[in-house]
């Protein structure tokens, strides 16, 4: 006798009601609301800067009307083009040095075994903790003795020195996450350590390079103190010094100052926006390991 086995019939069940997600949705709205508030707090000064820069001096004082006067007269008050160029030169050269030193140093600390490497690394990284103001005077004395306080070079050296410890730290952290085997495979394939750094590691280190570039760019571009002290040739002064001069004038035009400040802020904002996606990756690296 054969017995037909039939699968047990499932009793009809009512459609399950979707789980209640109310608390999560409320939390999301609260978070969204908080973010809007933060955005307003952050963006309001920019709004004020833009509106103020679009007024003439009299319109600013009276409160009504708009005019391009402060923008059109800005170049006659300060050499804004030259100052932006100076800031660009100082920024680019400093960042180039920071990357050129930080990349191989980070690679060496992360991937090579050598005596006292941990101690040397800690000494370099501890330099990050020293505030600029604390070493400003000795730095000034040193750079003056080297007769480098006139043009760009003194400021570039100071900025590069100040930024290198951070870049070494960031690149070391990043390269520690790169598998040793990747570099060893390159070495067995025929590369030296520099070859492995240049041809294998560099292409995958874009987030770290972008992070160092953006953070250092913002820091150097916005800095006033070093530019003020170390670049004494007026024809080579950066934009921040130019704006400070404008603000310190006998009669300060607030709309002109706002127009200059916007020009000054724009490059840093563009760099940040351009590299934003790498920046998050670069700053959070190491957290998930």
């Amino acid at each position: 006798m054969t017995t037909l086995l039939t699968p047990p019939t499932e009793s009809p069940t009512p459609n399950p009601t979707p789980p209640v997600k109310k608390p999560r949705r409320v939390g999301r709205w609260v978070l969204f609301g908080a973010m809007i508030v933060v955005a307003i707090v952050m963006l309001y000064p920019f709004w004020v800067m833009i509106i103020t820069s679009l007024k003439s001096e009299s319109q600013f004082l009276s409160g009504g009307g708009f005019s391009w006067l402060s923008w059109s007269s800005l170049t006659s008050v300060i050499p804004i083009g030259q100052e932006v160029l100076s800031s660009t030169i100082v920024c680019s050269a400093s960042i180039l040095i920071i990357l050129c030193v930080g990349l191989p140093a980070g690679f060496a600390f992360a991937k090579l075994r050598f005596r006292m490497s941990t101690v040397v690394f800690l000494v370099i990284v501890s330099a990050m903790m020293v505030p600029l103001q604390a070493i400003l005077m000795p730095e000034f004395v040193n750079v003056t003795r080297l007769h480098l306080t006139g043009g760009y070079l003194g400021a570039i050296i100071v900025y590069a020195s100040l930024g290198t410890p951070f870049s070494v730290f960031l690149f070391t952290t990043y390269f520690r996450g790169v598998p040793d085997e990747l570099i060893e495979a390159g070495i067995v394939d025929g590369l030296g350590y520099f070859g492995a750094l240049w041809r294998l590691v560099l292409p995958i280190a874009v987030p770290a390079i972008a992070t160092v570039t953006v953070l250092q760019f913002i820091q150097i571009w916005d800095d006033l103190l070093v530019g003020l002290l170390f670049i004494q040739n007026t024809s080579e002064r950066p934009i921040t010094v130019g704006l400070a001069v404008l603000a310190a004038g006998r009669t300060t035009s607030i709309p002109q100052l706002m127009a200059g400040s916007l020009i000054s802020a724009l490059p840093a904002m563009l760099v940040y926006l351009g590299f934003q996606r790498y920046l998050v990756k670069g700053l959070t690296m190491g957290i998930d390991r």
Partner: protein
Amino acid sequence: MAEITFDGVTKVFGDDVRAVDELSLHVAEGEFMVLVGPSGCGKTTALRMLAGLEDITSGSISIGGHVVNNVLPKDRDVAMVFQNYALYPQMTVAQNMGFALKIRGQSKAEVAKKVGEAAAILRLTEYLDRRPKALSGGQRQRVAMGRAIVRSPQAFLMDEPLSNLDAQLRVEMRLEIARIQRLLGVATVYVTHDQIEAMTMGDRVAVMRGGKLQQCDTPQDLYDHPKNDFVAGFMGSPPMNLLRVALEAHDDGVVLVLGSQRLVVPPSYATSHELPKVDGPGVVFGIRPEDVEVLDGSAPESITTRIERREALGAEILVHLSMVDAVGNDAIVVNDSGAVVARPTTLVAKMGPRSGVSVGDHLQVRLNPDHFHFFDADSGLSLRRVR
């Protein structure tokens, strides 16, 4: 193609960690040598020294008759396959495979030709334009092999290349690697902790433990004639049963004392083995699971056991048997005195998939007298005199 020789090679990390201790090994041209052993036995360190990725503390390594102790990795003309494949993520499969040739300044046409040939061997032709992240584990593994093949090196070095694959793919790739190695005839040193890989792939297998080479032989010789109890216990799945037992005089010969039971040692072992004196410290007695025969009823040369554990593997059942005394009152009579916590010594036996045995059943087993192994109780060395 070349032969490889390790001559008294030692690697010391720090002041006193001897990762590899006086390793002497010869790999002939075209030979597939497997280094096998548990974690920390020094097999990977030995391979890395051969590749030039670790310095040698003492001894020498030669490839093709030339000592390479101070030769840079790139000049050793060896290709290495890593456990995690180490593919260059920013390059396509073709670029990965041709990278070493490009570095060496070969023309684009030549690189493309060699990459194409290797891709055909590895069945990778349709994936040449993909990046590693768009490949499966098995495909990545094949690309890593391809990167090694295109160089036509003097030797292949492989560091646990199948460890990251699932069981089924591992079996496939095992055959694939062995096929390619035989096709190319290049001396290969293959590191693994998996003794099944070692047994199935290697022309010869070198078993390592604690930095020292224990034995280097063909897989069958290792299995049949282990030089010590470590090799006996490491090679084979399930491994050899090893029991620490005393010897007693019996008529003209000796018997093994298994609790209240006695197992006669055939007289031939007195000549083929250097058995210790009776009433001495005893020996370590070894028997492979397949040489433990389960009997239907009682027989003169059988011993009484009880099933402690049963593992159904589908094609066979492994039973873990403890020895009980002849009366059958379940008293466990043999304890492993070497263990930190005393535990009953068990024998593992293989049974047919449909033998309806269960835990607690009593079984009569016969230990195949042709395949007894004896090891020194202290040193663990085989007591076998001749081979």
